[in-house]
């Protein structure tokens, strides 16, 4: 499965084209913004876990935070989008998830929001809360979503971009709105503490209401990046009353023929009202 065409369009316009047209670039897939791809992936992007707001000084000049976010969009975003669009297509499966609140933890450029919008349809109404410590990621994400709106997508999506979940200033009265929490590749980061992450997110969920809560975890299949998954899982199940729906390794097709990506994924769920006796 490739990218949905509207997502592909905005990615080309806002990520691929600016890199291609940048004077530092000779070939966008060989030396985007003047840096060889291999070096981009390992050093500039740190495998997706870099400090994206900081400037990067390389042999052929400086890359700004915005440049680094663009390079993330070029080399990493597409695969993550493919995984999350596949996951949300299955999770929604034409069923209504009515006016959910989405907490996308370590959201990058709004990856989970774009994928969920695609699954719920052009007119879907939801609140998207993108949390990422890099402002450059949020800026790129906001531009992608604005471009989506010009194509008639995500026009009923309310958006918040935060550096930390604790910044969420939820003003709506407590409600039954379902909450979807996305932790996609976040726990690969060595600086993230799984328990603190879960507890922080649940503190916000309490303010939102008592509706259904689903937590979707995705990551690479590499063992070492999943070392925090057991703590993440235990904290959700034992401390916050979730049940484990699935914890597995899987594949998604990424286009014609044999192309596929492998991933580690887990889904947790807590039914509405289960916190009533708090």
């Amino acid at each position, binding site marked *: 499965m490739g990218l949905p065409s509207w997502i592909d369009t905005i990615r080309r316009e806002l990520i691929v084209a600016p890199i291609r047209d940048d004077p530092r670039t000779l070939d966008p897939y060989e030396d985007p913004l003047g840096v060889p791809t291999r070096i981009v992936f390992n050093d500039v992007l740190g495998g997706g876990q870099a400090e994206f707001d900081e400037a990067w000084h390389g042999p052929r000049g400086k890359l700004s935070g915005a440049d680094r976010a663009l390079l993330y969009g070029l080399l990493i975003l597409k695969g993550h989008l493919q995984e999350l669009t596949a996951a949300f297509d299955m999770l*929604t499966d034409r069923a*209504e998830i*009515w006016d959910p609140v989405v907490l996308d933890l370590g959201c990058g450029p709004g990856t989970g929001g774009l994928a969920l919008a695609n699954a719920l349809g052009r007119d879907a109404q939801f609140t998207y809360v993108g949390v990422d410590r890099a402002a450059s990621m949020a800026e790129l994400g906001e531009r992608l979503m604005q471009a989506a709106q010009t194509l008639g997508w995500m026009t009923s999506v309310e958006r918040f971009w935060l550096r930390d979940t604790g910044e969420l200033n939820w003003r709506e009265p407590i409600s*039954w709105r379902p909450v979807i929490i996305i932790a996609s590749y976040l726990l690969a980061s060595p600086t993230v503490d799984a328990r603190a992450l879960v507890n922080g997110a649940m503190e916000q969920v309490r303010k939102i209401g008592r509706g259904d809560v689903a937590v979707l975890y995705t990551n690479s299949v590499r063992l070492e990046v999943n070392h925090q998954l057991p703590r993440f899982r235990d904290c959700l199940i034992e401390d916050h009353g979730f049940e484990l729906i699935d914890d597995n390794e899987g594949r998604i097709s990424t286009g014609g023929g044999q192309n596929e990506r492998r991933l580690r994924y887990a889904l947790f769920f807590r*039914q*509405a009202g289960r916190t*009533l006796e708090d």
Partner: protein
Amino acid sequence: MRLPSWTEITGGPREVLETPLDQSLLVAGPPGSGKTALAIRRAHMVADTGQRVLMITFNRMLRRAIGLLEGTRALEVETMHAHVGRDFTRRTGALIPAPPNRGYDWIWGEALAMLDGHPEAGPSHDHLIVDEAQDLPSEFFRYARLHLAPVVSVFADENQAITRQSSTLQQIRRAGALPPAIMLVDNHRNTPEIVAVANHFHAGRLPTLRVRRPGGDRPRLVHHSDLGQTCAMIARWFTTTGGSIGVVVERNSTGWQLHRSLRARVDGRVDMYDSKHPNEGRIELFTPGITILNHRSIKGQEFDTLFVLELEQFLPCSAAVQRQIMYMICSRPRDYLFMVSVPSALSAAALAVLPGPDVLERV
């Protein structure tokens, strides 16, 4: 990758229907979330297995509504007071203990203690199903579990409780030894405009109604200088709009006066329910027409249009229970809600606790 769909993992109605019939159950949900329909469905499922099932309601009108909803199938449906009063006497040969002149305010502790001496009777049913459980005293659930049936399915909404004897979900759960509540969170009954008025009176720990219907007309506050005007308005509404119309009054005298005038004007069904002369068995709630009743009897009912008279009985909501009554009343109509002040205008204090004109239009 293989993930289940949202419908497969979210519970609510599905979880209620899938709970094994030999397991007790507690279901909580806002008005209009389908509790009564699910309760009837469960009762039928139990009855189909050949077990003795009994449905218990708080008031006689809900008993009637359930009787009509379940059609020709002979489910046993009774109000709590009628059933327990009789059951107690059958077991002990005595009347259930009550203070003098407080007929329905039973002394449950004493009643339960007296039953300890009569263990031989055993449960009368296999499965008990209770609707609008929040209006019943929590001791009833203990009585039910010990004496009426080994399996109890309870449907409740603690925000709608309107009696002094009412119970919270926790009290019901403890007294009936029930599992954690399954929540129904969506309101399928009211338009968003009506929900906005109901939610204005919402109090309590559960979130407000989550409405699942498209928009409709804004509810209205109307002033009439005499009951004749109100009668003319209701008659006109029935002629032009039709459907089922509920009229809430507090004084039976007002109700009977309205009943007389409407019958003279309306070519169709006009019924007045008065608990002093129980006639609910003759009221065809689900055929188009006008039903006049008080707030205690409207519990659990739904109408296309609702007129609420004698608002001064509940406003200015100085007590929490008045807010709950307003919340419960306002969540009865599916499409149209009218509040009528007649014959005197509402006091400034009463007006102040009503929603603003953006939610409740002034006419």
